[in-house]
C-alpha cells in the first residue's frame, strides 16, 4: 500500500467515527457528542481534500477515467454541502444523514479499485469540469433536501395528528427549518442542475458532435430536470411550502439515485463505470 491509500483509509476511519458519533448523539441525546463527531468529520474532510489534490497531481489527467475518483469527489462534495448548510442554518441535524451517506460513497471509492475507463482526451475541458461540479453539488443539495423532507413529513404528521411528541422527535428542529433546507436546495440546486445538464450537452457536442444520443442516463437526467423545474416553479411562483415540496424533493432525489447507481452500473451507457 502506498501512502495515498493509507491516507484514504485514515479518512475513511475518521468519517466512520464521525458518522457513528452523529448517530450516537441522537440516540443518547447528548449534543456534545455530535460536536466531537463534527470535528472528526472536518479533520477527515481536510485530509480528504489533500488526498484529492495529491491524487490529481500524482496521477494526472488519467484520474478522470477512474470510477473511484468520482465516488471520492461525490463524498467530498456531500461533506462540504453538509458543512455549509449546517453552518448557515445552524442545523446540525443534517449530519445524521450526510455523514453516513458520505461514508458509504467514500467506501465505494476505496474498494472499487478495478474500474477504469479510457476517456477521450477532450474530457479535460472546462465544460466537463462544469458538468461534473455543478451536477454533484446539486445532487448533494438534493440529498439534504430529501432527508430533511422525510423528517419534515414525519414531524408534520405528528403535529397535525396531535400525537405525542416524545423521545427522539422531541429534539428535532422546527418545521420551518426543515423547509428552509428544501428552499436552499431548490433555489441553488436547480440552477446548478441546469448548468450541469447544459454543459454536459455542450461537451457532448464538442466531443461526439451531437448534443443528445438517447443514452439512458441522458433520458433520466431530462426527467429529473423536468421534475426539478416543476418544484422550482411551484416554490418560487405558487408559494409551495412544507409537505408538497418535501415529497417532490424525495422523489427527485430517489430518481437521481436510481439514475446514478442503477443506470451507471447495469445499463449500456457512456456514463458507465464498467470497463
Amino acid at each position: 500500500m502506498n501512502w495515498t491509500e493509507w491516507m484514504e483509509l485514515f479518512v475513511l476511519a475518521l468519517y466512520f467515527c464521525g458518522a457513528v458519533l452523529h448517530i450516537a448523539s441522537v440516540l443518547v441525546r447528548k449534543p456534545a457528542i455530535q460536536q466531537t463527531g463534527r470535528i472528526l468529520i472536518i479533520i477527515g474532510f481536510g485530509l480528504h481534500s489533500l488526498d484529492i489534490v495529491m491524487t490529481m497531481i500524482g496521477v494526472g489527467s488519467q484520474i478522470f477515467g477512474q470510477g473511484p475518483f468520482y465516488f471520492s469527489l461525490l463524498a467530498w462534495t456531500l461533506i462540504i454541502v453538509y458543512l455549509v448548510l449546517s453552518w448557515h442554518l445552524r442545523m446540525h441535524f443534517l449530519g445524521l444523514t450526510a455523514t453516513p451517506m458520505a461514508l458509504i460513497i467514500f467506501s465505494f471509492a476505496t474498494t472499487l479499485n478495478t474500474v477504469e475507463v479510457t476517456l477521450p482526451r477532450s474530457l479535460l475541458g472546462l465544460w466537463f469540469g462544469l458538468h461534473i461540479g455543478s451536477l454533484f453539488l446539486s445532487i448533494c443539495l438534493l440529498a439534504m433536501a430529501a432527508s430533511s423532507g422525510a423528517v419534515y413529513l414525519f414531524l408534520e404528521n405528528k403535529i397535525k395528528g396531535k400525537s405525542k411528541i416524545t423521545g427522539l422527535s422531541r429534539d428535532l428542529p422546527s418545521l420551518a427549518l426543515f423547509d428552509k433546507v428544501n428552499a436552499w436546495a431548490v433555489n441553488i440546486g436547480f440552477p446548478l442542475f441546469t448548468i450541469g445538464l447544459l454543459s454536459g450537452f455542450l461537451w457532448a457536442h464538442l466531443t461526439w458532435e451531437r448534443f443528445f444520443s438517447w443514452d439512458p442516463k441522458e433520458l433520466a437526467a431530462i426527467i429529473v430536470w423536468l421534475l426539478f423545474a416543476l418544484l422550482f416553479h411551484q416554490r418560487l411562483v405558487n408559494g409551495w411550502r412544507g409537505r408538497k415540496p418535501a415529497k417532490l424533493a424525495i422523489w427527485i432525489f430517489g430518481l437521481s439515485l436510481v439514475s446514478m447507481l442503477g443506470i451507471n452500473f447495469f445499463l449500456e451507457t457512456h456514463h458507465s463505470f464498467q470497463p
Partner: protein
Amino acid sequence: MKQRICLLGLSHRTAGIEVRERFALADPHPREQGLITGHSPVREALVLSTCNRVEIVAAGRTDKDLSPLIRDYWVRLCGAQPDELIPYTYEHHDLEAVAHLFSVASSLDSMILGEPQILGQLKQSYRRSVEQGTAGVVLNRLLHKAFSVAKRVRTETRVASNAVSISFAAVELAKRIFGNLENQTAMLVGAGEMAELAATHLLSAGVKRMLIANRTHSRGCELAERIRGQAVPFSELFQHMAEADIIISSTGATQTVIRKRDIQGIMKKRRGRSMFFIDIAVPRDVDPDVNALDNVFLYDIDDLKEVVEENLSQRKSEANKARVIVAEETDKFAAWMRSLDLKPTILDLLSKGENLGRKELKKTLRRLGPKAEDPEVAQALEVLVFSLAHKLYHQPLDFLKRRAQEEDAGPRYIDITRRMFNLDNDPPTPDAHPERKTPGCRGRKPS
C-alpha cells in the same frame, strides 16, 4: 452533644390556603425575635415563607429536640397557640430534614412539579439569613448543597422540561412549527382572560407583533394598550388575519367564526406560509376541517389539555430519577456532618501528613539510589519525615481541641480546618463563600 438539624413546616400538602395565610411569616428575624439567644441551643436558623409553604430550619449542638423551640417561636410570631399549629405541620430531623430541603429546592415537593420559582424563593430566604447573621457552618453548607442539588436535578433529569400549562403548551407547539418566534405575528380573536394569558406568554417568547380583534372594539383597544398590541376592527378580521402566523381564538360565539374556505383564501395570500390556530373557545370558534389544509395547524382546548397531561405524567416519571439524586446527595451530606466531630478530623489530618511524608520519602529514596540501601539511612529518613509531619500538625491540633471545648466555635474551626487542608477532596469552588464576604464569627453571639 450532637450536631442537630430540625425542620418544621407546613405546605400545600398539609394545610389549606387559610391556614397557610394565617401562619405565613412575612418578615422573620430569628435572632431579634428570640429564636437564637444566648441560652437557646439553636445557633442557626432559616425561614422560608411562600404562598405554598412555610418552613423553618434550625441547627445547633444539643442533646435536646429543637422542634418545640421552633414551634414556640412560630406561634408567638403569629399570635396563636401551639395546638392550632400542630395538626398542620410536619417535622423532619437531621438527615430527613436535609433530604426534605433538597427535595424542596429541586421543586419535587411543589404543587406544580418542577416549577422554577421555589429555588429563587429559597435563595432569597438564604440571602436574608446571611444578612441577618443566622446562617452558620451547617446552614451555609446545607443551602449551598441544596442549590447545587437543584441544579443537578434540573440538568440531569427532565423534571422541569415540557410545558404544564395550556398557554405554555401552545407556545411550545408554536416553536415546534416556526422555530424562532421573533419574526412572527400573533393575533387574538376575542379578548378574554385566557387569550390575554396566552398572549403574554407568546410575547415573552419573543413574538414580534400582536394584533387584537374583538367584537367590542373598545375592549380590544384596552387590551391592546395593556400588552402593547394593535387593535383591529372585528369586521376586518380576515384582511388582517393574512398577516398573522399564530391565531388565538377565544370568542363567546355560539357558531363557527373561522371557516375552512376563509382560510383557503388567506393561505393563497400568504403564499403558503404556515398558520397555527389555537382555539381555546368553548364552543369552538374554528372549523376542525381547517387542520386538513396544507401548512395549517389547529389545536383546540382538548388537544392542548392532552399535551399538558402527557407532559405532567412525564415529569412525574422523571421525579423518580430526581429522588435518587436527592438520596445520593443526602448521603454525601451525612458524611460531611459526621466529619464535623473532632476525632475524624484529627485522624484525617494526621493521615494526610503521613501520606505526604510517605510519598516524599519514596521519592527521596529513589533519588538517593545505592545509598538508600543502607537500612540505617532509610530508617533515619523515615523517622525524620514522620516526626516532622506530626510536629507540624501538633499545634493546629492542639488549637482545634481547645476550640472544640467552646460550644459553637468547634464545628466552625473544624470546618475551616477541613477546607484549609482540603480534607474532603472537594474541587475548588470559584464562587465566594458568603462567610468570606463579611468577616467575623456570625454564628455566635457573646453570651
